[in-house]
């Protein structure tokens, strides 16, 4: 390469720089191993990228905002171009947000991009998590990375909530007050938790500076570190790929990092950033100047938190208050707050974090998995996921029950009651329906593999019989539908061994066998080669109008029309 005398000055300079770096860092080995690393291609793999890029946008726009934001609860009187607030007493934090919005060129744009990016960040994390969940991409060896991602989601929520409260407006102030109410409800330590947050009684004078430290240092620092770990593990494990021709558990099929993914992923960062810029330019978000500075007395009707907090808000709204505040030995246990504010989210997050380990235990599967499953091929897991999302969705809707009431002219009490019932009833129904749909789709896959595609070609035989010609799947198309392993519930060894001694661990095994039956009792196995041959043998004239079964009675004109149709199809 260096012998090439016609190389440009740029290439010479690049080579010199590379040589300089390599002599001091030995980076050559990393470039050699990493630059052509293969990543598989699928639209659903972009969800995690959107999360990463919105995080980068958050960091970039966040740095901009720190230059102008004043994290202080000291009181000041506003004097600025926004006339309705002229002469109003407010915290310096709120005044600086007005300054960013009205006086700093591009300030409002960056603020709005920052807020939209935060909403997109968490939406992308959640959908990315859904993709990983529904395709079983959390299975060995990726359980640890699932946990890392799970913690990243919690950190994302913490980042969102702490940032949301910083402008010190009346809307976010009431959000903090709700957080204070939930903190106080915790048995024994509740009052102290409230004092810990606010440095004394609510609202105090330290919550904004404290949230600022959390929002710009603590949480983003942790997110950055964990994103690094998350990506490192992706590189170590190599990305999962979907079942397809040539894709196995022992390889990864895709395109090289350099140049294809440098261009695609790098370009995608700019696309995400560009779309967020367009949103910031055209869609108003969190216009705090309309809400006014925080004051403990006023509150606005129709108040909504950011979307990712709606499920907590919805839980608080749905829980009935009558008889749910317990007093035991003179101590107050407000279950009306504890259940929706602490217990349900606690359970939800624990189950979410622990799921890969639960499934590994149920299946007893200790092998590595690198092929992402099609959701239909694991109906119970898919059903559990959809049921959880249904509960989440009911809570999100409940968090907007007042908006629903005013927009659709409905009774708030009726909406609340319907949603209370839905929270209990809808998830099991969703589970059952999803499981049936998955099994149905699996049967459809079998049907397709065994009998091929309907072609719409009706052929008449000499006997007068009409049949529709089916086109068999080619082996690549078929493979996607037969690649998955047939699954069986784990077998339970008897309680007593051959010498009549009760086996240790039998009860645990029995529980596992029961759960395993729930998972795999109802199942549809993939088509085997023998089944395909059998299907073709008895349905031969269906699938194979070949030379021996040439329909003698077919009209030449119809035949020609059919040919044209087939050609058009292939083109």
């Amino acid at each position: 390469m260096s012998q090439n005398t016609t190389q440009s000055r740029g290439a010479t300079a690049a080579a010199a720089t590379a040589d300089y770096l390599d002599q001091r860092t030995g980076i050559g080995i990393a470039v050699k191993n990493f630059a052509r690393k293969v990543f598989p291609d699928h639209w659903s793999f972009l969800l995690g990228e959107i999360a990463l890029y919105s995080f980068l946008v958050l960091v970039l726009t966040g740095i901009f905002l720190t230059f102008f934001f004043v994290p202080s609860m000291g009181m000041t009187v506003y004097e600025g171009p926004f006339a309705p607030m002229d002469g109003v007493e407010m915290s310096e934090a709120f005044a600086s947000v007005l300054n960013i919005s009205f006086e700093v060129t591009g300030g409002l744009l960056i603020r709005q991009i920052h807020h939209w990016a935060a909403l997109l960040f968490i939406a992308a994390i959640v959908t990315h998590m859904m993709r990983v969940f529904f395709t079983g991409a959390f299975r060995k060896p990726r359980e640890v990375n699932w946990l890392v991602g799970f913690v990243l989601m919690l950190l994302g929520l913490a980042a969102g909530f702490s940032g949301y409260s910083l402008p010190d407006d009346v809307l976010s102030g009431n959000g903090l007050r709700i957080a204070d109410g939930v903190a106080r409800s915790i048995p024994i330590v509740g009052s102290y938790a409230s004092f810990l947050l606010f440095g004394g009684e609510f609202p105090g004078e330290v919550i904004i500076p404290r949230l600022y430290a959390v929002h710009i240092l603590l949480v983003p620092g942790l997110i950055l570190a964990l994103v690094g770990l998350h990506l490192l593990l992706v590189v170590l494990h190599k990305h999962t790929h979907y079942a397809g021709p040539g894709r196995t558990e022992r390889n990864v099929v895709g395109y090289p990092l350099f140049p294809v993914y440098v261009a695609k992923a790098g370009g995608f960062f700019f696309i995400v950033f560009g779309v967020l810029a367009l949103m910031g330019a055209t869609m108003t978000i969190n216009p705090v100047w309309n809400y006014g500075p925080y004051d403990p007395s006023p509150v606005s009707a129709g108040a909504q938190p950011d979307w990712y907090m709606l499920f907590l808000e919805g839980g608080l709204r749905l829980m009935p208050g009558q008889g749910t505040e317990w007093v035991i030995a003179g101590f107050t246990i407000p279950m009306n707050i504890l259940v929706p504010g602490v217990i349900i989210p606690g359970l939800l997050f624990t189950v979410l974090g622990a799921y890969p380990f639960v499934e590994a235990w149920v299946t007893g599967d200790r092998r590595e998995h690198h092929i992402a499953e099609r959701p239909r091929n694991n109906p119970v897991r898919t059903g559990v996921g959809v049921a959880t999302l249904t509960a989440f969705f009911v809570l999100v809707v409940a968090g907007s029950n007042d908006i629903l009431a005013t927009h659709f002219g409905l009774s708030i009490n009726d909406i609340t009651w319907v949603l209370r019932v839905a929270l209990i009833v809808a998830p099991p129904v969703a589970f059952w329906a999803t499981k049936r749909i998955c099994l149905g789709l699996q049967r459809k896959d079998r049907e397709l593999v065994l009998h091929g595609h309907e072609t719409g070609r009706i052929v008449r035989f000499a006997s007068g019989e009409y049949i529709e010609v089916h086109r068999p799947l080619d082996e690549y198309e078929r493979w996607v539908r037969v690649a998955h392993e047939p699954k069986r519930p784990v077998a339970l060894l008897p309680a007593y061994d051959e010498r009549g001694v009760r086996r240790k661990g039998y009860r645990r095994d029995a529980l596992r066998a029961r759960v395993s039956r729930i998972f795999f009792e109802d199942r549809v196995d993939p088509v085997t080669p023998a089944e395909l041959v059998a299907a073709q043998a008895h349905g031969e004239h269906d699938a194979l109008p070949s030379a021996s079964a040439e329909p003698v009675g077919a009209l030449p004109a119809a035949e020609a029309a059919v040919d044209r149709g087939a050609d058009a199809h292939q083109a």
Partner: protein
Amino acid sequence: MSTEHSQSTELTAAATHRDVAGPLPERFENPGLEPHRPRLTDEDPGAARRATRQVAALFGVSVLGTIGVIVAHVAFPPGDSVASMRTSNLLLGAALFLSLIGIGTAAVHWAKTLMSDHEVVEARHPQKSSPEVREGAIAVLREGAEDSGIARRGVLKGAMISALALFPLGLAVPLIGEVGGDWNVGAFRHTMWKRGTRLTRDPSGTPIKAEDVTVGSAFHVIPDGLREQEHWIEEKAKAVVLMVRLDPADLKSEQGEGWSYDGIVAFSKICTHVGCPVALYEQQTHHLLCPCHQSTFDIADGARVVFGPASRPLPQLPITVDDEGYLVAQSDFHEPIGPSYWERLK
């Protein structure tokens, strides 16, 4: 037509062949990568040239967008009105959008049309290290542990663990001591209302005469002298009151004998659920609705909870009038206001 026939015939033939050769496999075998399908730009140099021009044009859009940002920054400052601020925001944002989306679409278009789309296969290896490496690692650790003597000298282990476990206290104790202010959680019990404190309008602080309160009207009330308090905002967060005059005939019950004055009732405005200000008063039903979580209280009936997630009535402030006819408090609230907490009744 002929393709589909021949394929299925081959399959049957293969299956038949297997029947002769031996039993069919349990499962299908992976057919291997699909043959590569060339793109238009792979085969048609004209298309490739077109794609190159498109990519270059998209980068050009980005350059124009960046220039647009600079132009918008100079020519359209936020100005002194909401309208000029909106214009500035829209133009800056639209130009920034072009600047970014140009680069993004150019790069993706380049990758999809001009870079190789031949799939590459890379082998995976099991995550776990080989037995030799594992043995080596264990040997290294064992050697280190041996060298340190931690197994033989038990006292070292105990001393080290104690020291390491205790040292965080050096940071944690001062932090915990200070992070909660004075840690006086008993402050939840009291507000600044006391016997004789005048009820004043929020936020002006002007006192209210009983005769000024007409039937059906609602007043947002703060205690007199609030702004002179050192921590007035914390005091306000506890002391805010909603006051309504009802027709005395409508008053079904109150929380204490003689706590109202001639149909005027005053309740803590802080919701007993999670502490939002309960601010929506429905004159016809005498219901008070919390806009945050829709707890509904009947103020004609001692602020009884009629719907929603709150468990307890809003605490009532006992009121009367002073010699000059101004409304005053008889005392502080008789229970802690706001959301429930563990030691509330202690």
